[in-house]
């Protein structure tokens, strides 16, 4: 780590280097050197995984971005704070779309929220909001009056063009580009389509049954969670975590609670950590069960859904006894968990662990070995390791491409460094590998649960936390391993009782963004296979 610090100091003396909670923090005041710095970070220092770009509005200090990146080979995290040039009308930063593929989408998101223009980015449309949306909602001076952007039942304006801003003769000028060619046969898949797993929309250019290009059109469930969080107190922000990726609710809660606890200096005991990890892994199994079910249903094997849901229902029963809900648990809270474990918990989990191996075996016999299933999934939608990292496709999807990206191993939190489990790594990178990775991960989750369930330490389930939680000024970053990949949370506090900015970096956004890349040249039926195997949750993409 010191090594990295030295190298950067040598290459870019104008950069301020400091140490944050997640790793080295760089501050770059002048964005004109940003592309050079990013290039050096990417190519010379090996920071190849761009976790997120958090747009920021520092009021008088202007707008800017905080980039979080990880070096995939040595598990080192680094952040760069870049301030935009220009006034609030037209602030701009150099684009890094050529260094990280996923930056194209991340930069569009920042543009959508803050109106920061990324110079050279080939596709500077809004990501979540309407083309004609007035204002940039995450700016602090945004006019939230519903009259500004009234709800309309008229169809939204559609366009086949996109904008791009390029630097010409020292000036930033706008260029208009085409998304689809005039003679493309474009078919609209979604937002109400049975295979998109929610309200995702793919505008797909077809050549017969072959896919030429996909334009992923998001925002059909964009609820503005990040903005609402800036108006709520810290404990109030928690419950939104249940409603992003509603299968990883426990895990996201866990992540946000850890972040707040770290920022506020609250120590939780071992019992709380173990309970949280148990819940995380149970929900991981439940989530993968549902994945197996819905994915098989996409491929036409409807019956599998019902077999997979059987196990999920059993897990939901366990949750329900302890948390009192089937889906939106709101269980982990700052300083512990809401309720103590139900007396039946240990017994029920044992019952689950007893039936799970048999069920997994059944899934494999019924589906994984089926010749039609194998024909449809093997070799379809291959994502190479390099692409997976560059597109930031983490979680089981990334691991199916051979990228060891498990946060539980790389940046252990809670009690994950004390339990024994394998990180599932497959190398094929196709739909089949992504499917198998999840089945194997269920087994590993069961292994973790089996190690912990009989050794839940004694102690309080909730430590003492001030009624009105205040977090000192500063910023923090935390990553957890959600069911679908790395979930990053960036918190900036101004010392009050509400977050100044809470940036959520969901794993599903990259998973949906990469679909265009890996479906090119495949058949339209494979879009379903590939999209299903990425297992994105649309509210998690859109937030």
């Amino acid at each position: 780590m010191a090594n990295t610090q030295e190298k950067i100091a040598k290459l870019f003396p104008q950069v301020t280097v400091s140490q944050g909670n997640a790793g080295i923090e760089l501050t770059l005041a002048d964005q004109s050197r940003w592309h050079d710095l990013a290039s050096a970070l990417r190519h010379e220092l090996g920071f190849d995984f761009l976790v997120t770009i958090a747009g920021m509005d520092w009021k008088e200090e202007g707008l800017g971005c905080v980039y979080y990146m990880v070096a995939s080979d040595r598990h080192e995290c680094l952040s760069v704070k870049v301030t935009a040039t220009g006034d609030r009308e037209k602030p701009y930063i150099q684009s890094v779309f050529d260094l990280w593929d996923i930056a194209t989408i991340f930069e569009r998101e920042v543009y959508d929220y803050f109106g920061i223009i990324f110079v050279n980015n080939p596709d500077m449309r809004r990501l979540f909001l309407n083309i004609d949306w007035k204002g940039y909602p995450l700016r602090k001076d945004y006019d939230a009056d519903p009259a500004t952007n009234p709800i309309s039942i008229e169809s939204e304006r559609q366009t086949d063009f996109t904008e791009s801003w390029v630097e010409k003769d020292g000036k930033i000028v706008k260029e208009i580009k085409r998304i689809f060619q005039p003679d493309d046969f474009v078919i609209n898949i979604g937002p109400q389509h049975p295979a998109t797993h929610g309200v995702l929309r793919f505008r797909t250019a077809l050549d017969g049954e072959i896919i030429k290009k996909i334009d992923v059109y998001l925002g059909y469930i964009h609820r503005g969670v990040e903005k609402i969080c800036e108006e709520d107190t810290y404990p109030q922000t928690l419950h939104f975590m249940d409603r992003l990726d509603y299968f990883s609710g426990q895990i996201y809660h866990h992540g946000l609670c850890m972040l707040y606890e770290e920022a506020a200096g609250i120590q939780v005991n071992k019992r709380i950590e173990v309970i949280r990890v148990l819940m995380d892994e149970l929900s991981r199994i439940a989530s993968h069960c549902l994945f197996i079910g819905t994915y098989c249903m996409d491929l036409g094997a409807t019956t599998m859904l019902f077999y997979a849901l059987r196990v999920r229902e059993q897990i939901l029963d366990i949750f329900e006894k302890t948390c009192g809900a089937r889906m939106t648990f709101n269980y982990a809270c700052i300083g512990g968990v809401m309720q103590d474990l139900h007396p039946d918990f240990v017994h029920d989990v044992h019952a689950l662990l007893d039936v799970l191996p048999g069920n997994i075996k059944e899934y494999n016999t019924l589906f994984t070995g089926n010749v039609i299933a194998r024909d449809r999934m093997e070799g379809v939608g291959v994502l190479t390791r390099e692409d997976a990292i560059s597109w930031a496709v983490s979680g089981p999807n990334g691991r199916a491409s051979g990228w060891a990206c498990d946060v539980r191993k790389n940046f252990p939190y809670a009690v994950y460094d004390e339990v024994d489990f394998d990180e599932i790594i497959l190398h094929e990178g196709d739909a089949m590998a992504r499917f198998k990775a999840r089945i194997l991960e269920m087994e590993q989750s069961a292994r973790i649960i089996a190690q912990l369930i009989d050794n839940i330490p004694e102690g309080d389930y909730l430590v003492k936390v001030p009624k009105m939680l205040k977090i000192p000024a500063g910023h923090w970053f935390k990553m957890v391993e959600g069911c679908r990949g790395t979930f990053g949370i960036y918190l900036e506090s101004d010392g009050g009782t509400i977050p100044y900015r809470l940036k959520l970096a969901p794993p599903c956004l990259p998973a949906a963004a990469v679909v265009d890349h890996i479906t090119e040249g495949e058949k339209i039926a494979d879009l379903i296979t590939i999209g299903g195997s990425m297992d994105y949750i649309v509210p998690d993409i859109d937030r």
Partner: protein
Amino acid sequence: MQDLSVATSWFHSFLLGYIPEWAAVTLECLLIGVGLLLLYAVLALFYILFERKVCAAFQCRLGPNRVGPWGLLQSVADMFKILIKELITLNHGDKFLFELAPFLVIIASMLAFAVLPWGNGLEVINFNVGIFFLLAVSSIGVLGILLAGWSSNNKYTLIGALRSGAQMVSYELSMGLSVVTMVVIAGTMNVHEICMAQEHLWFIFSGHIPAIIAFIIFMIAGTAETNRGPFDLPEAESELTAGYHTEYSGIHFGFYYLAEYLNLFIVSGVAALLFFGGWMPLHIPGFDAFNNIMDYIPSVVWFLAKAVALSFIIIWFKWTFPRLRIDQLLTLEWKYLLPINLFNLVLMVVVVLYRLTL
């Protein structure tokens, strides 16, 4: 074995006693038409419920059980509902073809009904190319599907229809060839005579190896022909919303819904005819007492039971296998089934020529 032609010819002569022959024939035609329509509707309702119940059983569920005793009236309720649903007409579609398409589909399956061997002496028309006629009329259905996809002016329906066209045209080959294989052993295309030829032993037993191969191919092709899973690409829900009938509502959609199940019945009826003796009871040479007992079960029951049992297998397919992709589907037909079928035809000819049948 009861011969129901006794009853029908008695009825004919009974009518002749009161009215001239032309009137008698017209009246009989009308009666048969009404009877077939009724049977058609009842069978469709039964099949819809049957599929829902079977599917529920496969999926560890209960299935419809609240409407009527054991849910028996569920599909009747659905029928009432679907009859009074609004018929949506499209603004930019081809109106005439749009309205015509569902009728083509339903007519195709209804015509095929006419030559099914319902019972001993119960064939509606007993003519010498019955099985050929059946193949011919059942392929009208694809026209209805293509027209539906085209006239709806919708990209999804168009893709669904084109897929369906490719699929049905291809699989008709396999179906036809396996029928021809069985015609070789029967030595006739007359439906009644095909049944009679199985008096001693059903073809699936007497034709042994080639008949079994033909049966398997027929079942695969038949499943594909009826657009059912795992070959349900034309209406693949997860890809094309509802395929070629996406834009149809009310009873127009109801026609497709019915035709799907009726085609299932027709395919299994033909399979029953070609391989399991149609209405012919199970006879085993040498077991005369057993054969006599079997004869007591009415021939209509035999036929329906066989057809439903075979449909059960096709439904089983649907709820077990994932869906194929269009290229895999066509590969299966052209690269595997067709050569095997041609070879099988030769094998059957050899078997018949050298009297190797059982």
